[in-house]
């Protein structure tokens, strides 16, 4: 598999939130504003990449029987580093993320990438896998956060986007909004995917050689 393929599949095909439905807690809890969503996304991007590299480097001398505890300790260490850095330099952001930053430790997606990919591959592919997955996660977070903030509060990153005529429905900022927005995004993605599949099939059927083979 080429590096580009490894990198890009995390963004759409195997998007951690929208396709695999892993690590949903943060996707709902901290996406009421874009700023929180972005911070969370970047923290996860860092943790998943660093952890993939660590696991990949140490894969030769970790006994497979104890690999999961080792992964967990490695993830927890990196998360603690991120926590301390954020607390020191961006205390306000750290506060608004609250407990969810510590909970990055148990995100299924990070453990899953370590187990499925990094423990079986060399360092460089693991690095790109981590960056791709993290980027997919960040993009999905910003997408959900953007929809919720623009339509739920009329602002984007704190700047007023929609005029005072817009009466925002509070529900989008509150808890239920997160579920509804993600549900709708998944539905739209499925519609889009179906279109793509149909176009693909139509293309195959119209090319002459394919017709013969069918």
């Amino acid at each position, binding site marked *: 598999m080429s590096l580009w393929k490894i990198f890009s599949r995390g963004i759409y095909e195997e998007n951690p939130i929208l396709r695999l439905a892993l*690590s949903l*807690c943060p996707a709902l*809890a901290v996406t009421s504003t874009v700023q929180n969503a972005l911070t969370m996304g970047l923290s996860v991007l860092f943790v998943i990449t660093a952890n993939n590299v660590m696991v990949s480097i140490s894969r030769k001398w970790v006994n497979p029987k104890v690999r999961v*505890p080792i992964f967990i*300790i490695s993830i927890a260490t990196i998360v*603690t580093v991120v926590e301390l850095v954020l607390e020191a330099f961006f205390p306000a952001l750290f506060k608004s993320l609250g*407990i969810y930053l510590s909970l990055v430790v148990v995100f299924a997606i990070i453990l899953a990438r370590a187990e499925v990919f990094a423990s079986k591959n060399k360092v460089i592919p693991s690095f790109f896998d981590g960056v791709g997955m993290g980027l997919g996660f960040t993009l999905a977070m910003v997408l959900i956060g953007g929809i919720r903030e623009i339509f739920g509060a009329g602002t984007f990153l704190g700047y007023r986007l929609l005029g005072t005529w817009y009466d925002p429905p509070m529900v989008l900022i509150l808890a239920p909004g*997160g*579920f509804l927005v993600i549900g709708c995004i*998944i539905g739209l993605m499925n519609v889009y995917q179906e279109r793509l599949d149909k176009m693909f099939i139509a293309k195959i059927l119209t090319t002459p050689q394919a017709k013969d083979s069918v």
Partner: protein
Amino acid sequence: MSNLHEYFLLFMSAAIVNNYVLTRFLGLCIFFGVSKSVNSSMSMGMAIVSVMSISSIMTWTINHFILVPFHLSFLRTIVFVIVIASFVQLLEIVVKRFLPNLHKVWGIYLLLVATNCIVLGVPLINAEEDFNFVKSVVNAVGSGVGFSVALILMASVRERMEYAKIPKAMRGLGSTFIIAGMLALAFQGFSGMIPK
């Protein structure tokens, strides 16, 4: 007596009013993964309640007697994760050895619980809010019960939805999210019932 009153309010708050799943979004992976049938969600609820109450006792003890006196609070996340994950593994082995029948129903859910947002989140919240021992346990049991309630509600809705005519794109994950949104809306109605 006033203590009892306080504990009761805390329990209701954790279980219903500030339901951990539907208003604080902890434990969603299991919430969407296991809620396909009412039976399995009951076993899951049982596993969650027992694991959370015991692990909150353990983490409280460690936090109170080791981490805080030695100024090691920054290691909280690492220590809690390790303690809970190893405890769940141990519990699984013990149950497998002594209660094989229970293990058949339970085993897989126990392993799922090992690294899960809600199981780690509640002890962390307990430590952050500086709850005393009884309060920590009450909070853990309450949130476990709240989780089970949400899970069973979700599972019963999904069982009925099995034969419904849903647009193709929304089948599966999409409709599940919308149902969860509706449930969360319902639980939103409880908000503010307990003054903070």
